[in-house]
């Protein structure tokens, strides 16, 4: 009976909790969806005016003193990205609603996705490069949180950290690069930098600027040798992978390269950096894609391949290359996002993503299968899909730009043939044919989950059939932005029988061969990969481990926990740094300027020196403390003699309290250790350090007192203390009024130190257990 009651209460509270979760998740979902729709519609409404050459701008104040304004400027390139981000955003938010319906993290996911979308839209719309960088970092942070969404999973946490360290590290380089770019070109506004043409390439720091900015772009867009984080980031849930790691965020680096191509491109450095990194990335990752059995990882590697291909094209500053890059970017966003979402559906429905276990899914999930097959056809580059046009452009581009066309053409054909092989695997091994070995019967997913793949796949088909609209309103303006000159482009499915078409036919033939010999090819690639030296992930692991190793060694060396060790370091650092400075800037010693020493001062100083000697040779702590107190009080008396009454009182009080505090502690400690202690062997060294510190300090003090004072500040305080702050005690007026912010900082330090001491004493006792 009691057990029943418990279970009933549990059921009740669970449903209560569920209601609460759904409530907040619904709010988050509604906010995300509405924002995405609003942005999408807003971008659509600007399409024709931007196509006509009028950018959509917005400007606001933010940190005027640092020259950071909220300058937004949406031109053709920004519009293309904006439409992709907000449009795919709508589908991904809908999809996530179904995917996470009963997940306790649903609300968190929707908020994070929304934050990401806003950051990404900001990134592609910023005209100010500092603003761009801030949004850039925001996408890095939201990506970190989204990759680590399943934070109870070690692998997810590791991948999230890796994505953060790699892209965050690149971000730091980018920041320096952008600042140098701003300095070199004389403006922090992208529009002005671009308007100044290729002036930056003439600048003496151009190689440094280029390296730093490309480091940022390459890490973000997963270019070799930083490509490894992206497949690992597949630890994220499917909608996140689809949105961030295929359609949008990883294209931020591409966006930056497109944006700056007209300013930084056109040089040999640019050409070789991009074509080599992009080329290696494309070929390597398409090989890696073929050896995967996990469909999602396969897609991840093909994403890396696509990014490599686009980077390779951006190496050239010809219009055909820009056109190929822009078109392929759109093609890729459509089919890759659709496939990621479809694989998410398969995973949700069957519990596996291993294509060896899946087959003939069209019987169970017909609508998902429709979307996936259409998307895969576009990926393979079959007519009449947009993918076909994209691939034709790639071939046309490679035939045009390369000095040694056949090497690059061969690489492009190989990479594309592998795409065909993978697309055919998706179609015939997973959705239309193949044997399923899973035990449970898969069901079609909710409508919100299939609408994404289907819409995107149909978009790929329609834009392929009727390329006129998208060319005029999206592709042409974007290409114009990349070229920084108005471009005239036309796309069509049929170009007649020419080089690209023949290459396409070869590609399809090789692709079909690859499809039939997939297991042999993947075994060959596996054998090859095992023989190759370590790259990417292992290098990251090695660096991370070494950094932690060195850091812990260094910390153990410096943070010994011994007070005398700390003091040794502090005083040695003081002596060395000041002594070196004094060697280069000697202090002139004009002793005639010194005021005469009165007998009273001589007596005080004599007392202080005696006390210091007593302190040094004392055998008990109490004597040492009292002697120290005498020295401090002597200083207070000297302050008094020279008229600094406030300072003198403070010094005296601090000295008194110090003696009391230390006495409280030391009374409870044992006597000084015996002189046979190792401390004695340190005696000589300590004496040297102490005398050196004393001599250096004396030189500085003499130097300061012999330097003629600039009395401007003194006069200001003397004149204004009473007039403006109504106080005759200048010291106090400075403390509480003129420089009150400094005092506030100091008081905060006192407070923090006191709280820390109290907390440390408590912790120490608790660690030892109750007395």
């Amino acid at each position, binding site marked *: 009976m009691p057990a029943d009651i418990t279970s009933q209460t549990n059921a009740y509270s669970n449903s209560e909790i569920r209601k609460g979760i759904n409530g907040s998740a619904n709010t988050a979902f509604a906010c995300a969806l509405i924002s995405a729709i609003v942005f999408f519609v807003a971008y659509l409404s600007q399409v024709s005016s931007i196509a006509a050459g009028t950018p959509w701008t917005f400007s606001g104040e933010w940190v005027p003193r640092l020259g950071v304004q909220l300058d937004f400027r949406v031109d053709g390139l920004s519009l293309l990205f904006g439409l992709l981000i907000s449009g795919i955003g709508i589908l991904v938010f809908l999809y996530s609603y179904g995917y996470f319906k009963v997940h306790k993290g649903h609300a968190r996911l929707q908020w994070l996705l929304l934050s990401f979308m806003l950051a990404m839209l900001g990134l592609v719309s910023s005209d100010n490069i500092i603003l761009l960088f801030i949004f850039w970092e925001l996408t890095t942070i939201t990506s970190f949180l989204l990759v680590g969404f399943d934070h109870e999973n070690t692998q997810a946490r590791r991948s999230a950290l890796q994505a953060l360290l790699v892209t965050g590290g690149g971000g730091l380089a980018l920041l320096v690069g952008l600042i140098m770019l701003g300095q070199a070109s004389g403006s922090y506004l992208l529009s002005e930098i671009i308007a100044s043409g290729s002036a930056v390439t003439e600048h003496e720091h151009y190689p440094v600027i280029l390296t730093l900015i490309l480091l940022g772009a390459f890490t973000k867009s997963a270019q070799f040798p930083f490509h490894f984080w992206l497949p690992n980031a597949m630890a994220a849930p499917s909608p996140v992978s689809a949105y961030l790691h295929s359609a949008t965020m990883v294209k931020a680096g591409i966006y930056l390269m497109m944006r700056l191509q007209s300013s930084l491109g056109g040089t040999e450095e640019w050409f070789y950096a991009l074509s080599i990194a992009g080329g290696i990335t494309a070929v390597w990752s398409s090989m890696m894609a073929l050896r995967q059995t996990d469909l999602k990882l396969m897609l991840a590697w093909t994403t890396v391949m696509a990014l490599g291909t686009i980077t390779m094209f951006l190496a050239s500053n010809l219009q055909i290359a820009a056109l190929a890059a822009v078109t392929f970017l759109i093609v890729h966003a459509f089919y890759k996002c659709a496939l990621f979402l479809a694989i998410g559906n398969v995973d949700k429905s069957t519990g596996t993503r291993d294509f060896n276990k899946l087959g003939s899914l069209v019987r169970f999930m017909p609508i998902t299968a429709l979307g996936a097959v259409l998307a895969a056809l576009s990926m393979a580059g079959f007519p009449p899909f947009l993918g076909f046009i994209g691939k034709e452009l790639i071939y046309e581009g490679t035939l045009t730009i390369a000095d040694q066309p056949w090497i690059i053409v061969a690489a492009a054909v190989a990479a594309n043939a592998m795409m065909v092989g993978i697309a055919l695997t998706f179609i015939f091994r997973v959705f239309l044919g193949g044997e399923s070995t899973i035990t449970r019967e898969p069901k079609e997913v909710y409508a919100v989950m299939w609408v994404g793949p289907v819409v995107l796949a149909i978009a790929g088909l329609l834009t392929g059939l009727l390329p006129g609209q998208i060319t005029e309103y999206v592709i042409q303006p974007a290409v114009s932005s990349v070229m920084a000159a108005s471009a005239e482009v036309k796309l069509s499915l049929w170009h007649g029988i020419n080089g690209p078409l023949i290459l396409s036919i070869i590609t399809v033939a090789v692709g079909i061969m690859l499809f039939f010999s997939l297991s042999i090819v993947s075994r060959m690639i596996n054998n090859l990969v095992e023989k190759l030296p370590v790259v990417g992930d292992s290098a990251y692991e090695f660096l991370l481990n070494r950094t932690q190793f060195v850091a812990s060694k260094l910390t153990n060396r410096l943070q010994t926990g011994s007070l005398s060790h700390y003091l040794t370091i502090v005083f040695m650092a003081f002596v060395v740094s000041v002594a070196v400075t004094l060697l280069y800037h000697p202090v002139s010693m004009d002793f005639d300027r010194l005021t005469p020493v009165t007998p009273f001062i001589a007596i005080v100083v004599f007392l202080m020196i005696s006390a210091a000697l007593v302190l040094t040779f004392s055998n008990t702590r109490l004597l040492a403390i009292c002697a120290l107190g005498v020295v401090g009080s002597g200083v207070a008396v000297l302050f008094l003699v020279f008229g600094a*009454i*406030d300072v003198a*009182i*403070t010094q005296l*009080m*601090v000295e*008194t*309290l110090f003696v*009391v*505090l230390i006495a*409280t*502690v030391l009374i*409870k400690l044992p006597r000084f250790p015996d002189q046979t202690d190792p401390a004695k062997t340190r005696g000589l060294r300590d004496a040297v350090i102490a005398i050196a510190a004393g001599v250096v300090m004396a030189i500085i003090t003499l130097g300061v007192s012999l330097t003629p004072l600039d009395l401007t500040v003194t006069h200001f305080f003397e004149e204004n203390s009473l007039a403006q*702050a*109504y*106080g*005759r*005690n200048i*010291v*106090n*007026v400075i*403390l*509480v*009024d003129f420089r*009150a*912010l400094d*005092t*506030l900082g100091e*008081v*905060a330090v*006192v*407070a923090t*130190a*006191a*709280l820390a*001491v*109290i907390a440390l*004493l*408590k912790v*120490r*006792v608790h660690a030892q257990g109750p007395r």
Partner: protein
Amino acid sequence: MNSLIFSTISRLLVGLMLLFSVFLLWRGHNEPGGGFIGGLVAAAGIIVYGLAEGPGMMRKLLRIAPQTLVLIGLLTSVVSGLLPLLQDSSFLTGMWLFIGATETEKGLGLGTPLIFDIGVYLVVVGGVSGMVIALEEEL
């Protein structure tokens, strides 16, 4: 420390020192003194009392936990700096009120710097006596 003489004198002393500390705090704007010095004097008085009577009595004398006193002090200083924002001045600008001011007499000036200084005073009193209490209790 069980000494009747010290204990008796410390009680007398703590009152005098606290009074003197407030005097120093008050006159600080025009004569030597101020929140920092006042706070140190008050803390010294409280510590003398604590040495004679033990940390428990120090806590009783303070009435509220020293950590709380520190935070109240910090808050007081920050709030005194925020007040001028109400009349569109920048953070920590002095705001003054002259009580009984006439054509010739300035009157009694009360300003946010005084509130700021009271905050400093509280932080110093709470911080120093808190450290001594913790040392006495935990060691």
